[in-house]
């Protein structure tokens, strides 16, 4: 199986158990990364398809729905416009982390090459000795594929997202749904660090920012 055949097959069946796919994957890191990306997209797709449905509440008829949505839309939009703050980047990051629970439970230090692979396309590297990385993938976030790491620090595990496409003017910190998130300006875009009950998360985030090297 060559790279083209591999990509055609995993493009249609990202979780295929075909031994030929597994064989090619083992010897081709670029194709392995491509399959990881497709699998990440499928996990997101699976969540997206699970639309909420409230049993027992009949759906409104078309004309009723249109009229109601027009009136409600104006009222809701006005209310939101006046009173509801837009979701912050930090809260979006927490939302993403909550949907990747498997990342937290990953155990065992990843080989440096695997970490480098996840960071490579973002033009970033992690300095040696920066901490034990137990998870390193590229995930869909805010319409972009971004490196998603879990780093075991002295204060506990933290999730790190390198958001090269999102500039922020200043550091922000939020606590939401049992998680804390810090977003810092970075040489390229921003970096988000998320933890649960991590003491001194702001300091941990700055240490991680210092541990990342960026291509010129």
């Amino acid at each position: 199986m060559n790279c083209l055949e591999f990509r055609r097959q995993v493009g249609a069946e990202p979780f295929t158990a075909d031994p030929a796919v597994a064989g090619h994957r083992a010897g081709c890191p670029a194709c392995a990364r491509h399959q990881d990306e497709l699998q990440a997209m499928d996990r997101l797709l699976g969540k997206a398809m699970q639309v909420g449905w409230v049993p027992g509440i009949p759906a409104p008829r078309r004309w009723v729905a249109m009229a109601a949505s027009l009136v409600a839309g104006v009222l809701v939009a006005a209310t939101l416009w006046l009173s509801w703050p837009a979701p912050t980047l930090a809260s979006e990051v927490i939302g993403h982390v909550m949907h990747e629970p498997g990342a937290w439970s990953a155990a065992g230090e990843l080989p440096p090459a695997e970490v480098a692979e996840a960071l490579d396309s973002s033009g970033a590297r992690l300095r040696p000795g920066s901490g034990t990385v137990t998870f390193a993938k590229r995930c869909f976030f805010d319409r972009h594929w971004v490196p998603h790491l879990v780093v075991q620090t002295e204060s506990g595990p933290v999730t790190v997202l390198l958001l090269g496409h999102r500039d922020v003017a200043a550091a922000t910190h939020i606590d939401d749904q049992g998680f804390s998130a810090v977003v810092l300006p970075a040489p390229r875009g921003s970096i988000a660090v998320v933890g649960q009950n991590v003491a001194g998360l702001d300091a941990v985030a700055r240490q991680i920012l210092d541990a990342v090297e960026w291509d010129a």
Partner: protein
Amino acid sequence: MNDDPARRDRQRRFAALCEPLRPDLLRFAFWLARDRALAEDVVQDAMLRAWKALDSLDDDARVKPWMLTIVRREHARTFERKRLEVADVDALVEAEASVLATDEDAAVAEMREALFRLEDDYREPLVLQVMLGHSTDEIAMQLGLTRGAVLTRLFRARQKLRAALAGEGPETTS
């Protein structure tokens, strides 16, 4: 008449086999119709047809594909019977904004909208594969396509979604 033991057995069989599938059928119908009210109508009519045709279901283990086929046909019939026009996708997105929106993760909402905008020929096999866990062969049987045609549609569906999420125009596919 309601005391008829045969009818009671039939009701029990229907309740045990078909009713538990309702949430999946509603989601499937929603992704077919992209309209919650229409999806509920389709599933209600499909349930009625399933009740009437229950005796034709020979193998209880095949109830899910059997029901999905009924829902697909009912959806097609609904469009034919009501002479519904193909709606503008922007209007559909706006009308179903409450279903598409999620406060959990912006990426999920973006993916929902991208899926909403995907053409029917690509969206349906993808829903069967990802949401309902069907194999390529099962999708081919369900849609009356060859295995190769299903693989092509699944491949292109993902290409189109990736392009949409990356904010690109339609991709050309080989």
